[in-house]
């Protein structure tokens, strides 16, 4: 399995190359080659693991040298963060980095001896995550090459630091691979902090005042999570004499005393990483970064790091206080973020809120901690990763061509930028339309919440799904409204198109194949995590699902066939008789032509971010603080 160190270290090496090479064409070429190499690496890993029987593999027990490198890496991160904080005069944030790093250094060097267990674990979940990171991350990097070219030419007010941007993207990829493949909590801490720092640096890319401000907000929230993570890890080291995540979860399933605090603190860290309430504002602020970073970090991969950890922890969360806290915060975020999404007109902000909302649903699923909800969470994660990445890339490409990303300007996009509009349509449809992934996950989550008698979560899911469908459907409707507009020149580059097309195809494939995927891959994954055999989806439902999927694809096709053969007389739309004739203008009472404008409902003054964010943050903060106090108090006493 030599491919594993390759996957972690190769992107780091490429990152250095990216920084050093300033000639764009050469650097782009190297980027393409590296992406192909990374995808090949993951393919090799998957094949090797499949040949080995798809069993979990634990590797690398003796790793003294590497442990020291990891520690050095953490210290390096601390230094970078401290320097940057001092430069920008945010002194207190450096404390958030210094304290946990020193703590963990002390614990590693002078702390108790821990039993040597494997440091790398390859099982179904890690392989799935690796595939997601490689495929989606790789495609986004391909997209970013074209996008940043247009971005640099359009935004000449920002310094063109593309080499820096790509360095950070590759550094991030390497860190994510390390993160999902590690079993040692000490290694996980390093990779966690690396992703936080990458995100911080990427948000501040344009170096505008608002970008700097938002980047520091993202930094302190993620570092706060890092503090929680470190405290949990160190506690586990001292009390449990181990740093193995696998060991922690196993002990946690039995409810061993010393696992309660680590699991609580790690869950708290996951909540900050996944931008749950009250930590959602960093993700909203991260939208000022260029689109590829929004697509990669802030929807498809980095925030999924928090979810990944929660999925690992979920067997240990069921029925505990921590689990209740996580499921409440998740469900609450799901509902509140989807309400706030209704009030947004900026497409990227809508996507950000919907990311937070979906992450909330995933978090809630993990918090409940049953096989069904974890199954639902895995599928939600899969669907969300592909479709959100597709949507972000598409909105970025549309913005490049139209110079706006206001949804109101997307009216009739199907007739102005047809390809991009179709991709948007596919992405949104994959997000919430039955019977695709989101909906079956909701089915499973609802069923499991009722089984667990978690009435609050049931209410959150019910009301949240109503509000979710509202903002998605109204966006979709806007795209297809036939307003006979003037077409726009589509300046999307070829590599952007490649990435978008592959994403759309993957989305469709996933929609069609997911019953097979469930049976063949995810069900056994749940067995691995929970250690017991259970059929998450009853067979009858699977059959029904397959039939429904076929219908939802076949019916429009049949309807189109029937419809295209019909002769139809076209009439102007009804405007009380004052339609000028092209459905775009009408005649006013003075005989002049007036343009017809129609907008969606937004209700910004009632349910917008300004109104709802602060109360939601207060409520969720109260719940977290109270629950943590109960947990810590109960575990220590």
């Amino acid at each position, binding site marked *: 399995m030599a491919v594993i160190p390759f996957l972690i270290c190769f992107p780091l090496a490429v990152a250095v190359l990216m920084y050093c090479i300033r000639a764009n064409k050469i650097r782009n070429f190297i980027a393409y080659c590296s992406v192909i190499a990374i995808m090949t690496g993951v393919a090799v890993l998957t094949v090797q693991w499949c040949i080995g029987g798809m069993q979990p593999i634990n590797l690398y027990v003796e790793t003294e040298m590497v442990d020291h490198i990891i520690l050095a890496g953490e210290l390096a991160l601390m230094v970078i963060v401290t320097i940057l904080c001092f430069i920008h005069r945010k002194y207190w944030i450096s404390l958030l980095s210094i304290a946990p790093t020193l703590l963990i250094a002390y614990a590693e060097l002078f702390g108790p001896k821990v039993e040597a267990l494997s440091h790398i674990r390859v099982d179904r979940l890690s392989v799935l995550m690796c595939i997601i990171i490689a495929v989606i991350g790789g495609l986004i990097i391909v997209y970013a090459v074209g996008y940043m070219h247009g971005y640099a030419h359009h935004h000449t007010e920002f310094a063109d630091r593309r080499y820096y941007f790509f360095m950070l993207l590759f550094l991030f990829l390497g860190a994510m691979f390390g993160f999902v493949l590690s079993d040692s909590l000490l290694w996980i801490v390093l990779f966690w902090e690396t992703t936080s720092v990458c995100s911080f640096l990427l948000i501040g890319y344009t170096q505008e005042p608002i970008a700097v401000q938002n980047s520091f907000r993202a930094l302190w929230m993620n570092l706060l999570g890092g503090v929680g993570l470190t405290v949990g890890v160190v506690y586990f080291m001292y009390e449990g004499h181990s740093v193995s995540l696998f060991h922690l979860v196993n002990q946690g399933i039995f409810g061993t005393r010393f696992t309660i605090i680590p699991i609580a603190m790690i869950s708290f860290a996951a909540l900050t990483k996944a931008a749950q309430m009250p930590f959602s504002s960093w993700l909203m602020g991260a939208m000022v970064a260029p689109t590829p970073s929004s697509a990669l970090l802030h929807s498809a991969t980095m925030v999924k790091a928090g979810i990944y950890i929660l999925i690992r922890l979920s067997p240990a969360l069921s029925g505990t206080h921590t689990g209740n806290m996580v499921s409440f915060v998740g469900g609450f975020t799901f509902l509140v973020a989807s309400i706030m999404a209704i009030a947004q007109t900026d497409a990227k902000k809508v996507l950000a809120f919907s990311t937070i909302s979906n992450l909330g649903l995933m978090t809630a699923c993990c918090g409940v901690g049953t096989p069904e909800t974890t199954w639902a969470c895995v599928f939600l994660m899969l669907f969300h990763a592909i479709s959100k990445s597709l949507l972000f890339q598409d909105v970025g490409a549309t913005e490049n061509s139209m110079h706006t990303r206001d949804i109101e300007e997307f009216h009739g996009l199907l007739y102005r930028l047809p390809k991009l509009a179709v991709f948007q349509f596919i992405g949104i449809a994959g997000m919430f339309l039955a019977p695709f992934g989101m909906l079956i996950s909701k089915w499973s989550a609802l069923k499991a919440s009722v089984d667990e008698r978690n009435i609050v979560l049931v209410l959150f899911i019910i009301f949240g799904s109503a509000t979710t469908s509202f903002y998605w459907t109204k966006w979709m409707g806007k795209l297809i409204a036939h307003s006979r507009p003037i077409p726009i020149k589509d300046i999307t580059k070829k590599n952007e198109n490649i990435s978008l097309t592959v994403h759309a195809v993957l989305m469709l494939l996933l929609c069609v194949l997911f019953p097979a995927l469930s049976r063949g891959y995810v069900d056994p994954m749940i067995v691995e995590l929970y250690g017991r055999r259970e059929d998450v989806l009853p067979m009858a439902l699977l059959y029904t699902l397959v039939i429904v999927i076929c219908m939802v694809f076949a019916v429009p096709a049949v309807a189109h066939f029937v419809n295209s053969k019909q002769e139809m007389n076209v009439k102007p739309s009804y405007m009380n008789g*004052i339609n000028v004739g092209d459905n775009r203008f009408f005649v006013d009472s003075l*005989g002049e032509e007036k343009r017809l404008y129609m907008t969606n409902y937004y209700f910004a003054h009632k349910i917008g971010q300004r109104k709802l964010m602060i109360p939601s943050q207060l409520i969720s903060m109260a719940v977290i603080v109270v629950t943590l106090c109960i947990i810590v108090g109960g575990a220590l006493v």
Partner: protein
Amino acid sequence: MAKIHKSPWLLHYDGSSCNGCDIEVLATLTPVYDAERFGVENTGDPMQADILLITGGINSQNQPVVKQLYDQMPRPKVVVAVGVCACTGGIFKECYNILGGADTTIPVDIYVPGCAARPEAIIDGIVKAVALFEERSEEHDALRHEKKHGQLTPEEYIRKAEENSRASEEAAETKAIDVDKNQIHGNITGELTGHTMNKLRHIGKGKR
């Protein structure tokens, strides 16, 4: 199959009237006169309407509007001009802005004079319109049948369809006079003539 077109839907448009006839039209749809028992429904949407009830005269501002509304209605369609203003321009005929009755713009099939036209007369007009609508529907079905079986070219089809939707001059005259006679008696004396009363009794018994 072609006989069961018992669902005439109205579109009521007011040109440049004093609203007297409009109120009478609305009264026709109220429970006292209840035009709905014939399946009449006052839809406001020309694309779903069969019968266009026009009140009020045509001026230069509403002429294109009336034309557009008429064009938006799908065939087969019938036009009923209610009130003298819609028939000929009425009391406002000599005004500088009034171009005349509805037939200056669109082909009118049935004229219901009166100032204001009484609900009984309007129902009379609607009943005649329904009969004419049934006739037109049968012609439309026959035409479509011919087209479907390739006996007509598309141009012939359109030409014939347009012809059918215009009333022939004589037919219009006859209908106008018919109603007119009843109207003269009905309106001036304020009572219903025996003729109209009989008709209403028949209608009430459910015979169409």
